[in-house]
């Protein structure tokens, strides 16, 4: 059964986020041969329309308005609902990012539809579109289907492989004008605190520090290692509670759930709440001076030792590797 599926592309600092391409790939599966329509919302985003097409969208609808410069749930939901009204899709896929998490339940509420949040895989099986998603912060997984109405899901960054970019693809990029009004929440100011560079939820490599880093300064060698690997720095709640770092870096059951290719845990004991957030990473490395630490039970590779010795040595060794390869 082929379906028309909408994908909301998410723009950050002038470019599309990777998760948008992953969402297109998921939408292709849901569409079962039907049309995939990209949607871009913002104040100057039309130039990015062709990018969505190169990654697999068939055509793109753009809603541009000054009032959509920053994300607000009122502005974006008016824009997206107008597109939904015009296109009458049978499926909608959005990235499970801060924006997607905030916007999607509102749209589902408006449409009186179901919503499968935070999917890590999608397949067609037994005549159903089946989504896989973590529950209990990754301690278990469920497979879920929509039983009534539109197939609406958000997809977790970094889990569904995007399609290869095809420079030769073309498609229509049309704009839809929507009267955006009555914004009930106004963003007065944005304070940039997130570490520059790679976003934790999208990072391929994460170097994470726990109480073992002993101070805010103790994160410096971790940052250097992450930089060499093009990765991001995360933390345990122990490190956040001790005020060595910001809570936005926390990984675990009450923090971010991450699935990078490589997770390097430095001075983290491996409490069950921490493991919930990272144990589905592809490869886990533990560096801890306590050979009995629980983190070694989930680590693919472990080094028993002082992180302040091991981490800088690792950084040097990876630098050498980069020079040679």
């Amino acid at each position, binding site marked *: 059964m082929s379906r028309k599926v909408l994908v909301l592309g998410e723009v950050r600092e002038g470019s599309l986020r990777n998760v948008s391409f992953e969402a297109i790939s998921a939408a292709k599966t849901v569409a079962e041969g039907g049309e995939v329509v990209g949607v871009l919302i913002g104040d100057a985003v039309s130039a990015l329309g062709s990018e969505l097409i190169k990654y697999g969208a068939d055509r793109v609808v753009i809603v541009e308005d000054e009032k959509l410069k920053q994300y607000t*749930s009122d502005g974006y939901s008016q824009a997206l609902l107008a597109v939904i009204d015009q296109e009458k899709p049978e499926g909608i896929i959005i990235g499970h*990012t*801060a924006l997607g*998490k*905030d916007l999607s339940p*509102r749209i*589902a*509420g408006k449409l009186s*539809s179901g*919503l499968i*949040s*935070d999917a890590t895989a999608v397949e067609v099986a037994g005549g159903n579109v089946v989504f896989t998603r*973590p*529950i*209990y*912060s990754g301690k*278990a*997984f*469920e*497979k*879920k*289907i929509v*039983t*009534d109405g539109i197939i609406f899901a958000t997809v977790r960054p970094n889990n569904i492989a995007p399609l290869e970019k095809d420079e030769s693809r073309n498609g229509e990029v049309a704009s839809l004008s929507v009267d955006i009004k009555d914004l*009930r*929440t*106004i*963003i007065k100011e*944005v304070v940039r605190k*997130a570490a520059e560079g790679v*976003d934790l939820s999208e990072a391929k*490599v994460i170097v994470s520090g726990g109480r073992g880093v002993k101070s805010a300064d103790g994160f410096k060698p971790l940052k250097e290692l992450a930089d060499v690997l093009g990765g991001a720095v995360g933390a345990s709640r122990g490190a956040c509670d001790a005020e060595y770092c*910001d809570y*936005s870096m926390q990984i675990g*059951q*009450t923090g971010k759930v991450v699935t990078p*290719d*490589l997770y390097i845990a430095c001075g983290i004991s491996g409490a*069950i709440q921490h493991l919930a957030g990272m*144990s*589905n990473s*592809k*490869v*886990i*490395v533990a560096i801890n001076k306590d050979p009995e630490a629980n983190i*070694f*039970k*989930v*680590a*693919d*590779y*472990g*080094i*028993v030792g002082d992180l302040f010795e*091991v981490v800088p*040595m*690792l950084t040097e*060794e*990876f630098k050498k590797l980069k020079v040679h*390869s």
Partner: protein
Amino acid sequence: MNIYVLMKRTFDTEEKIVLSGGKINEDGAEFIINPYDEYAIEEAIQVRDAHGGEVTVISVGNEEAEKQLRTALAMGADKAVLINTEDDIENSDQYTTAKVIAEYLKEKEVDLILGGNVAIDGGTGQVGPRVAELLNIPYVTTITKLDIDGTKVTVTRDVEGDSEIIETSLPLLVTAQQGLNEPRYPSLPGIMKAKKKPLEELELDDLDLEEDDVEAKTKTIEIFLPPKKEAGKVLSGELTDQVKELVYLLHTEAKVV
């Protein structure tokens, strides 16, 4: 001010997940207030103490949730409402829960609704924004600060580590992010007082809802545990050699760098 808190009873974060007969086995498991909802309860109490009014904590679930509602009352909430759907609803999802809560709230004078930004079991974060949509009031998710001045509200919202300072107004729904406050432990006098505070129990009938009105739109067809991670290789030898070996293994065996 009429303040409502949406609260879910969840598995303790210490619990391992065990399946039996394809379902999550709850036998002997400890349950807690969803940690993010604890921030919501604490914030609600602080807002009431500063501005006056009443805090009502609502939970949709079964009668087991009474225990967590009593804990919320012991922390300082004034009233609790348990919407017991156990006998009426077999298959529920976030559509169901939001509809039930909105149906209860739509008859009330509501100034402020607080919830956690996500429940650590289901992990969808849908119910708060869905309720706001159904009640047609604005919402802000993942907040780390809340200031109320008359009907004017200033909130700080965590957006993947950055902070947005947002102006909005009551009535409003917000969902709590870690860092919003430090939830208090119930005091002994608090626990004594909680026993006498009102805990109302409702069923779908009392809300004039039929099971069909709130029937789930999605369904879980399978639950499974992730493949068990085998303990890997703990390296040995001189530290410099271990580091070299690790880089070599990551490059050639695991192929992640």
